[in-house]
């Protein structure tokens, strides 16, 4: 029976179809509702901390400290948000995160596409080796680069700049980008290129007029997936940035507690809510594209 299960003959398909209603009746509905309940419980556990984060950010400090902090709020206030913006540099932090995310994404997309184009479409003698070289980067932990880059940056005066964050963020995301683009380029039929070549288009024109326009979906995927990690990057920013003017959101948030001495939880949570909103909105609007990206990143790996 085991062999039959692992390697089932294709024949049962025919008999299975008409019997489907029987199966449904045989399988009790209790399982289904039990599954539903379990999923609901897990979702609550998963989402409750986030809901609590938001609820805390709109309740008064008094209500939070004296009442039960985990019950539903009895008051509603936007005061915390005013305090959050008043004490920190939230606006500046968001702007900095935006600049770094944009900069790194541009590099990741353009350079990733170029490398994939050279490897997959143009082809050259060592293309497999170069591809392998890029693939290694997927499993290399980012911590290896901290000390060397810190030393290199300080010798070329790059410490405490946007570039100091953008370069490693883009560099470490590049392998996955090269990989996603080259697996997409595999699906573009060779005839397309051959026809364009016969019409006299060179490699640059083909890149600009065929490959690039066809890759829009993959570009969206790559940008979305990388934005999550770059927007939230803590380790590079924390290592290479010192001045307040360049601090990205994660660093800005971290300084919150220090800046206020005693932790002002409601205002801190308000600040957290403000900083996660941009990415959250993008995520909720484009969540299908983003999920597709996260899935394909792994299943094609």
């Amino acid at each position, binding site marked *: 029976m085991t062999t039959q299960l692992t390697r089932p003959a294709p024949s049962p398909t025919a008999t299975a179809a008409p019997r489907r209603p029987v199966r449904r009746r045989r399988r009790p509905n209790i399982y289904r509702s039990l599954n539903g309940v379990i*999923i609901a419980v897990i979702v609550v556990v998963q989402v409750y901390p986030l809901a609590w984060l938001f609820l805390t950010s709109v309740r008064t400090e008094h209500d939070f400290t004296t009442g039960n902090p985990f019950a539903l709020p009895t008051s509603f206030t936007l005061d915390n948000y005013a305090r959050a913006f008043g004490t920190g540099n939230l606006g500046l932090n968001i702007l900095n995160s935006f600049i770094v995310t944009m900069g790194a994404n541009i590099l990741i997309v353009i350079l990733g596409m170029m490398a994939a184009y*050279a490897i997959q479409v143009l082809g050259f003698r060592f293309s497999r080796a170069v591809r392998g070289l890029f693939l290694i980067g997927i499993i290399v932990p980012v911590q290896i680069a901290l*000390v060397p880059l*810190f030393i290199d940056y300080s010798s070329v005066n790059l410490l405490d700049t946007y570039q100091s964050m953008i*370069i490693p963020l883009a560099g*470490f995301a590049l392998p996955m980008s090269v990989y996603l683009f080259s697996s997409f380029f595999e699906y573009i039929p060779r005839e397309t290129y051959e026809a364009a*070549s016969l019409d006299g288009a060179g490699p640059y024109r083909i890149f600009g007029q065929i490959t690039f326009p066809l890759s829009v979906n993959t570009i969206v995927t790559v940008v979305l997936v990388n934005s999550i990690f770059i927007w*939230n990057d803590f380790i590079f920013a924390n290592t290479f940035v010192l001045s307040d003017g360049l601090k990205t959101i994660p660093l800005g948030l*971290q300084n919150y507690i220090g800046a206020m001495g005693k932790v002002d939880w409601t205002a801190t949570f308000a600040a957290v809510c403000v900083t996660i909103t941009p990415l959250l909105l993008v995520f909720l609007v484009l969540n299908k594209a983003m999920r597709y990206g996260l899935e394909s990143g792994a299943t094609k790996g």
Partner: protein
Amino acid sequence: MLPSRSRLSVLVFLIPPLALYCIAVLFPILQSLFLSFFEWDGISDLQFVGVENYVHMFTGDTVFWRAFFNALGYLFICLVLQLGGGLVVASLLTSLRRGREFVKTLYLLPAVISTVAIAFLFARIYSSDPVGLLNQVLQWVGLGDLARPWLSDVNTVLAAVSIPEGWRFTGLYVLIIYAALIAVPAELEEAARLDGANAWRIFTKIRFPYIRPVWITTVIMATTYALRGFDIPYLLTNGGPGQSSELLTTYMYKTAFTSTNYGYASSISVFIVVECLVAVGLIFVLLRRKADA
């Protein structure tokens, strides 16, 4: 291969990405390897010490071993939550009739939130004064005796810093495993069911073997991510109390940027890379072999 390509065009497309990759990734790896044979505080001259850093690391440094075993514990908790949890939730999801998309979206929410925000959140969940969420819940269900300051208790702190990391990315693995599970041909399961296989047998004999390639990928992803885990332990406890939640990554970071011992920090980071490579190799060997058997 494009007929009209020239050697120059290949170089034009290949050099810029390769340059960035070398500057940010490949060159630093070599540089770390180089620095790991020196003693250097960043100010005075480099001092060649041969393999002394490695000898000290493996034989003389108790903190290193403590951090290594802590990292294994961290890895274990992350894998259980992300892969075990991911597999369970994904399997449950396939039996759900409606709302699958909605559940997946909710599940993925924590993944888009920055680690600093998550650290704040969990600091407040674990705290005992003021009473945090976890201790409150324990009191409600009558387990008030178990309440404790989870982040300053040496017995619980490692689990306490690992769980947020596991929690954060569970949704990602649910998503990936679910996508693989719904690709299992319904006919296969149908046929097995007609042969009298129960749900467990269908899962172990059909579904799981079918998704094995994706499973290997997710195991590799989860393992390498957990081995480079840094943010949450660093932010929540900074390795403390004592060294009870010190990971190799946090230890390396402190060695480099608090004690400014760049040489020794480099040997630790070389070790982390080797550890990742060995882990990936092991996963391939173990899971592949099982697939053949």
